[in-house]
């Protein structure tokens, strides 16, 4: 049970978290402010590879997913934390340099910030582009996409 083991490693480092086994795989939910500490502890526990980092607008807040992998054991783990709109989550680039691009992308597309990022410029869009939040970008309704 990778989720429970990861949760044990995190609790041993003094970080409260909630593990779960879902369709997605092993998921651990925790407080966004502790994510850098958590990833540092997990990196020591063998999760040496950041697969992906992205955000999802849930309609109430931004949910960030850090997808890490223990290469030696072929184990994947999804860390999730909720950040309020226009809020912030610590940058983890010094633990996983792979986070450099996705953090910039999440910041510009979801209107949040990652304090500690060494180069917090826009990555994909130009200055002045609004974040692609669900409430500000029109999504076609179920009626519009229904089968004719």
């Amino acid at each position, binding site marked *: 049970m990778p989720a429970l083991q990861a949760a044990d490693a995190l609790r041993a480092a003094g970080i409260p978290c909630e593990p779960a086994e879902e*369709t*997605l795989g092993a998921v651990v939910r925790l407080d966004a402010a502790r994510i850098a500490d958590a990833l540092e502890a997990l990196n020591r526990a063998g999760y040496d590879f950041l697969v*992906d980092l992205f955000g*999802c607008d849930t309609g109430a807040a931004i949910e960030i997913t850090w997808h890490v992998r223990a290469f030696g054991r072929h184990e994947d783990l999804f860390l999730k934390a909720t950040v309020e709109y226009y809020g912030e989550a610590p940058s983890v680039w010094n633990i996983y*340099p792979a986070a450099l691009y996705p953090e910039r992308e999440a910041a510009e597309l979801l209107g949040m910030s990652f304090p500690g990022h060494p180069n917090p410029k826009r990555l*994909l869009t130009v200055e002045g582009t609004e974040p692609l939040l669900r409430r500000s970008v029109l999504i076609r309704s*179920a009626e519009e*996409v229904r089968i004719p």
Partner: protein
Amino acid sequence: MTSVSSMSDEGTHHPVVLPCGLRCVPRGVDELATEHLVLNMGPQHPSTHGVLHVLVELDGEEVIAAEASLGYLHRGIEKLAESRRYHQVATLLDRADYISGLHTETAFALAVERLAGIEVPAKASHLRTLLMELNRYASHLVWLGTFGLDAGAMAPFLYIMRDREMILDVIEAITGSRMMFNYIRPGGVVADLPAGSEDKIRAWLAHADGWLDENDALLGGNEIFRLRMVGTGVIDRTTALAFGMTGGCLRASGVDYDVRRDVPYCAYPGLDFDVPLGSTGDNWDRYVVRIGEMRQCLRLIRQLLDSVPEGAVSAKMSRAFKPPAGESYAAVESPRGELGIHLVSDGGLTPYRLRLRSPAYFNLAVVDEALAGGLIADAIVTLGSLDIVLGEIDR
């Protein structure tokens, strides 16, 4: 030119002619002011393989620092997918990695099937695998040809495109398209192999090994090409892992990881193939690993052709398909590395959030590290060796 002056007692300069007749002292240019030059490579530049803009800071010919500037091809594919039904999303994903669209289509189909618990018929999985391997070979040929061009080898490109044309003809006969396939959908594939397509593939296979040897001899067998590759653009194992590199670039650095073997999907568990590995992670290793992968590709295509199962090519799918609410992640080994689709569903007709884990996006992030310290001519080769596709990076 410094004119010869003699300082008189009053402190004024008077040009003089030396006794030998020279009008200046030949002391060389020792006071030349030097400064670092920031060079814009791209976004319209043949060596950036698409619309990539790389800023390189140069000290003479040496690269001091480099930074990739992305977004010239950003179309918001992930966002657009939120307003498309599940059967329509493949159309968008074809345009993400436009060199190997079948891999992106498969990753999405697998993510949807995992979330909804759909059983895919064996024949559909088999055809997916066959088409993906054909597509991988075609994609690697594009890389091989353009990589040669980057290093200044023009002729191999022409031979390689001849080879690729034959594969594209085969893929077109099966999927109906040469580039935007829209062939692999959640549940299975669109259509069975048309009559005569197996013969067409075998006709190409009869030439493929010889042509690959020929192309390898033209490039890898060339001493000048080899000298430019060995020891340049070194990405060690630690750096490759830290930057989240996958695929041939990661294997060239000596990390033995291939999604097809380690997290098997489709028909790969029943197939016999090797995973070529490099050791130093230089441009030469990346070349050797990809050439090795192409040989394995041919091996896989032969195995797949010999064992096409009978049966349906798709599960029954509702036109108003709605997966249950939840999340799933599925990854495939695309020609560039681990291509993952992270799907979030709220139980509606369209994906709630679709995230494309693009391998080239992570492979490209290493340019700062890989280019710095090398020469500008090597930077172009190193960029080519990473095999990037901007459609997938910018999405």
